Every structure is written in structure tokens, then in C-alpha cells.
């Protein structure tokens, strides 16, 4: 068990007062971000990223990932107490969580939500602990063609498996790839798409785009809504916590099922949102008493929360092992890695052991600390919602601007952020998904470099992508996934033709 020894080393790296303090700060900031309307995990991490530029990478990633955990915890608070999902993945939590609060069982529901979040991420972190080193050591043998094939697989699975209209996903992705290409071409050194502008020479920075797309546009969207709210306040007593925990073993099937769904959907680009709904629906379907769901059943809180957290955590696995983010937030963390001069990918496990194992250990520790923190401080965070949005909105705008400027010290980036804010607002309203855009922007250059390096190596022969079994099967799988809807339809009509009686 080499992994365990390294993990212990990771804990040793972490257990200093400074790191623990950063962890608490990150968690508190994250819960704030999760509770406040108009902010979420990706926005919070993107806006607070500049704060970490001057830290060493380990402290920085610990703080950022704690912001992420905090945001995941925070989403549950508003959905249970106010029936307002602070995050899209907490929508399923409101189904049973809010009825429970109405029945005066808010404390119970909150405990259930936090505990199951904790279990979900714990399962996913254990998966990361044992799987990530294996995948990365396998991936160490990858050359440029293999990497390009994996990137291609990521892009294609987004197009083929996404729920949005296909042409909208394609628009979003190709736009992201194009913007990633602006500036100096890394292989030949030639300038592309700069139109003789000195500002465009630097290229479009990924984080600037993300801050605009998620931060600014989210404020514009939130303003459209009615912001009035009525909710329950709740303190959690130790007695309630213990009684919920005592019942926990009864629900082990639900917890296990949801963790599994979450881990699976987190690694593949399905995301926490899909996972939470799937967890909820399956718990309902397998339940003996289906009608009681939606009326305040504790299982209806356990199932989606476990799945959402497992998925949110598992999304970090492909990022650590292969340098491919499994979610929007993971993509932003990846952007952070590059700012600190770390090259995400399998080499990370070899060259920056302290960093990787520190991060993994911080996932364990951050979740334990987070659980204790939210259980004890829920009333404070619930009252954060009393702060009027008119005070919160300008502060978010200022934080966004600070973040955008700090990345490259360029005023142009603040304007670029504003532009991306408008783009994000319009895109969200007409249903163009932003996740493929983010992914394309962060992976675009790496994918192109991988392609061109493999072309140089192979003398411009495309057959290199089928030169051995491994790269060949990944490339083929990518192409199959790209055309999956077509294939699926073809299969469907063939089956229908074979069984006309049933139709």
C-alpha cells in the first residue's frame, strides 16, 4: 500500500496551524458563496483564485478546494431552509428537505444533508486515493498521440452525450477552442487571430473568461428573479445529530447507491446535477413506500446529497490523473495549477508528490472540518440571507474585477470580463451550454499541441492515431461517442423493425 504511506505524508504536510487556518477560511468563504444567491462553486473559486496567487501551491490548492467543499455544503442550507437551491445540484434536495423543515424537522434534514455530503465525498476521495496513482502511472506511458486521443474523447463525449441541442454544444465548444487559439502559436511562434492588436497578443486568459461567464452573468441572471424569500431558522443540537447518525446504518443501500452513481457521473462529464437527480429518482424507485417521497422523507435528502458530493469530488480524479477536468470547478482548479506553474497531468504524481498528496489529504481533512463547521454554525449562515442583494451584488462585481485584473495585471482583462459576462448571460438564456466552452478554453492549446507534436513525430501521417491498440481504441471510442445519438437512433429503429408487434 504505497498510497497509504504517501497519504500519511500528505497529512504531515497539512497539519500546520497555517494550513488549518487557511482551510477554515476557505470553508467559511465557500459556505458563504454557496448560500448567497447568484454565486456558486465555480464562481466562488474563480473569484477567489487571485487571493491565492501569492501563496505556495499547496496552501493555495488547499484553500481553493476547501472553498469548493464549502460551496457544496452551503447549497444544502438554502434548499432546506428556504426552498431555494443555492446551486443547481441542490434542486433535488429541496424535494424532501423543505417539507421536512416545514414540519419542524429542519435540524434533522440539515444533519442528514451534511452527513450524507460527507459520506459521498469520503467515498469519492477514497476512490481518488487508490485509483488516481494507478491511472497516472499508466498514463505516464502516454505520448502525444495518446494524449490527443484522450482530449478528443473528452470533447466528443460532451457533444455526443450532452443533453442540450447538439448544434449549441458544438457552437460553444468550437468558440472556446477558437478563443484558446488567439495569440502566439506555441509550435511555430506565429501570431494568430490577433488583428495587430497588442492586447490580443497575450491571448484570451481562461480565468478572465470564467470570471465573466460565471460571476458577472450570474448576477445579471439573479437580478431577473424575484429575490424575496421566507424561511425557517434552525439550530442543530447534538441530540438531533446523534439520533440521525444512529439511524444512518438503516439507509446504507441508498447511501451506497448514491455514492456509486456520483462517482461514476463525476468521472465522466455528467456532473453533480445529473447525479443528484439520478440518486433521488433511484432511491424513490427502489423504495417500498414511493408516495412518501416529496413529503419530507429523510431518504430523499440522503440520496441526492450523497450523489452530488460524490460526483463533485470524483470530478477531481481525471483532473489529477490525466489533466482533464470532470466539471466546471475542476476546470478552474486546473487553470489555477497552470498559474502556479504546475503542469497538470500524470507527471504531477512524480514531480510534485507533496502537492498531490497534500491535496488529497486536504480532501479528507477538509470534509471532516467542514462537517463540524457547518453543523455548529448553520444559524449564522442562514441569516446571511438577510443581507440585501443590493449590498451583495456590487461587492461581487468588485471581487470579479479584482480577480480578472490580478491574473495578468491588464485593464483590458476587466473589459474582457465584462464582455464575457454579457456573452454568458445571453448564452444561458438561449440554452447554449457554458461547460463545453470552459473545457475547450482550458484544454484547447494542450490538445492542439498534442496533435501537432504527434504529427511532427509521425511525419504528418494521421494513421498515428491508430498506430497501437491503446490509442486506436481511445480514438475509435471518441468517434463513436461523437456520433452516439445517430448510432443510438439507428439501433432503436433496427430493434423496432425486428419487433414490430410491440410498437
Amino acid at each position, binding site marked *: 500500500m504505497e498510497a497509504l504511506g504517501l497519504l500519511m505524508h500528505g497529512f504531515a504536510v497539512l497539519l500546520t496551524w497555517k494550513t488549518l487556518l487557511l482551510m477554515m477560511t476557505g470553508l467559511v468563504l465557500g459556505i458563504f458563496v454557496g448560500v448567497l444567491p447568484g454565486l456558486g462553486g465555480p464562481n466562488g473559486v474563480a473569484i477567489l483564485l487571485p487571493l491565492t*496567487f501569492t501563496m505556495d501551491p499547496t496552501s493555495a490548492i488547499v484553500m481553493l478546494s476547501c472553498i469548493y467543499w464549502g460551496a457544496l455544503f452551503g447549497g444544502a442550507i438554502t434548499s432546506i431552509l428556504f426552498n431555494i437551491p443555492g446551486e443547481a445540484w441542490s434542486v433535488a434536495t429541496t424535494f424532501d428537505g423543505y417539507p421536512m423543515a416545514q414540519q419542524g424537522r429542519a435540524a434533522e434534514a440539515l444533519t442528514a444533508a451534511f452527513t450524507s455530503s460527507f459520506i459521498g465525498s469520503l467515498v469519492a476521495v477514497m476512490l481518488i486515493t487508490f485509483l488516481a496513482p494507478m491511472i497516472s502511472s499508466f498514463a505516464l506511458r502516454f505520448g502525444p498521440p495518446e494524449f490527443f486521443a484522450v482530449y478528443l474523447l473528452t470533447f466528443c463525449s460532451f457533444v455526443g452525450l450532452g443533453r442540450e441541442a447538439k448544434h449549441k454544444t458544438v457552437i460553444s465548444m468550437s468558440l472556446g*477552442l477558437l478563443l484558446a487559439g488567439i495569440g502566439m502559436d506555441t509550435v511555430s511562434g506565429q501570431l494568430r487571430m490577433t488583428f495587430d492588436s497588442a492586447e490580443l497578443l497575450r491571448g484570451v486568459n481562461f480565468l478572465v473568461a470564467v470570471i465573466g461567464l460565471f460571476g458577472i452573468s450570474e448576477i445579471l441572471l439573479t*437580478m*431577473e428573479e424575484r429575490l424575496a*424569500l421566507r424561511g*425557517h431558522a434552525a439550530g442543530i443540537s447534538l441530540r438531533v445529530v446523534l439520533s440521525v447518525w444512529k439511524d444512518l446504518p438503516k439507509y446504507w443501500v441508498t447511501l451506497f447507491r448514491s455514492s456509486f452513481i456520483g462517482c461514476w457521473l463525476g468521472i465522466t462529464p455528467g456532473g453533480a446535477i445529473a447525479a443528484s437527480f439520478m440518486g433521488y429518482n433511484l432511491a424513490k424507485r427502489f423504495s417500498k413506500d414511493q408516495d412518501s417521497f416529496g413529503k419530507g422523507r429523510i431518504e430523499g435528502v440522503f440520496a441526492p446529497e450523497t450523489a452530488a458530493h460524490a460526483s463533485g469530488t470524483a470530478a477531481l480524479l481525471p483532473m489529477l490523473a490525466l489533466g482533464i477536468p470532470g466539471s466546471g470547478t475542476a476546470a478552474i482548479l486546473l487553470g489555477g495549477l497552470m498559474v502556479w506553474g504546475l503542469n497538470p497531468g500524470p507527471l504531477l504524481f512524480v514531480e510534485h508528490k507533496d502537492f498531490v498528496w497534500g491535496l488529497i489529504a486536504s480532501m479528507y481533512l477538509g470534509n471532516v472540518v467542514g462537517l463540524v463547521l457547518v453543523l455548529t454554525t448553520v444559524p449564522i449562515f442562514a441569516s446571511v440571507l438577510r443581507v440585501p442583494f443590493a449590498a451583495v451584488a456590487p461587492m461581487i462585481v468588485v471581487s470579479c474585477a*479584482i480577480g480578472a485584473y490580478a491574473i495578468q495585471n491588464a485593464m483590458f482583462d476587466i473589459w474582457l470580463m465584462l464582455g464575457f459576462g454579457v456573452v454568458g448571460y445571453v448564452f444561458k438564456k438561449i440554452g447554449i451550454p457554458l461547460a463545453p466552452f470552459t473545457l475547450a478554453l482550458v484544454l484547447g492549446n494542450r490538445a492542439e499541441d498534442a496533435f501537432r507534436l504527434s*504529427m511532427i513525430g509521425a511525419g504528418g501521417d494521421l494513421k498515428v492515431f491508430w498506430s497501437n491498440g491503446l490509442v486506436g481504441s481511445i480514438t475509435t471510442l471518441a468517434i463513436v461517442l461523437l456520433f452516439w445519438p445517430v448510432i443510438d437512433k439507428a439501433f432503436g429503429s433496427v430493434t423496432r423493425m425486428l419487433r414490430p408487434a410491440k410498437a
Partner: protein
Amino acid sequence: MSNTDIEIVVEDPTAPEADSPQMASVRVVDVVVCLLLLALALTLGYDNWRTGAGWESTGPQPGYFPFYLSIILGGASLYGLVAAFLSRRESSESFVTQAQLRRVMAVFVPTVLFCLATQFLGLYVASFLLISCFMRLVGKIALWKSLLTAFVFTAAMFVTFDVAFDVIMPKGPLEAALGR
């Protein structure tokens, strides 16, 4: 079993009315966005073709990828354009109502002004102005509360970034006068 234990109530007096007239339909915005994307695809495509979008013996030229991506983007936007014209279902859906637009503009216009102010007055002064004016004028919050919040937030930002973490922000005449 009742709603009597509701303890937190936040009102939103300026909430957009539900029956406000629609300003634009999703379909119109869809068409406009597709046209804009098409124009962008043409511009970028032309620029990359000029850079060189061919295939050399060692693989693609610098403009090769972006050129074909422009074509993909253009094709997808064309498809979107046709789909938007053909769809009837979405034609009645509202993109934004008048009341909603008013609220969105109430944030967007100050944000633009804030960016302008940052360019000339520096970020800290601009953020003080943005927060205090926004809270007072849009949120109708008492003047002293607005000024105090704005001052505390701006000061906290200054201490965090400029003093503690050495992250340099755009500065203007005020900071120069204070010697920072």
C-alpha cells in the same frame, strides 16, 4: 406542522412584475446570436486562411486548426439560424420582459461605469463609489449604511490585496496623493 416557525423573511419590493410586456423573444435573440457568431466565424476564418491553413509535410500549419474550427462554428451557427427560423414552439417564449430588463440594466450600467471609473480613478475609489451608490440608489438603503459598508469593504480589499498579499491593482490620483 405549520408555517408558524418561519423566522427569516426578506422582501423584494422592486421585484419585476410577472405580467410585464415582453421585450424580445428567445427566437429573435437566437437569430441575432447566430448571425453574430457567423460573422465572427467568417472574420476568424479569413484571418486564419491568410495565416496559412494548409497541411505541410510535418503536419498542419498554424492556421489549420482555427480555420476548420471557424468552419465548424459557422456551420453550427447556420444550422442554429435555420432551426430558429423553422421552430414555432419557441417563438412565443420570452427572452426578457421589460421589468426584468430594467433590473438587469440596473446592475449592468453601474458595472460598466465602474469599469470606466477603474480605468481613470483606480479600482479602490471606483469600488467605493459603486458599492455606496448602488446600495443607496438601487437598493434604497440608508445613506450612512451604504457609505459605511462601501468604506469597510473597500478598506478590507485594500488591506488584503495591497498590504497583505502584494497583489497590485489599478490605482488613481487618490492613491498617488496618499503615497501608495
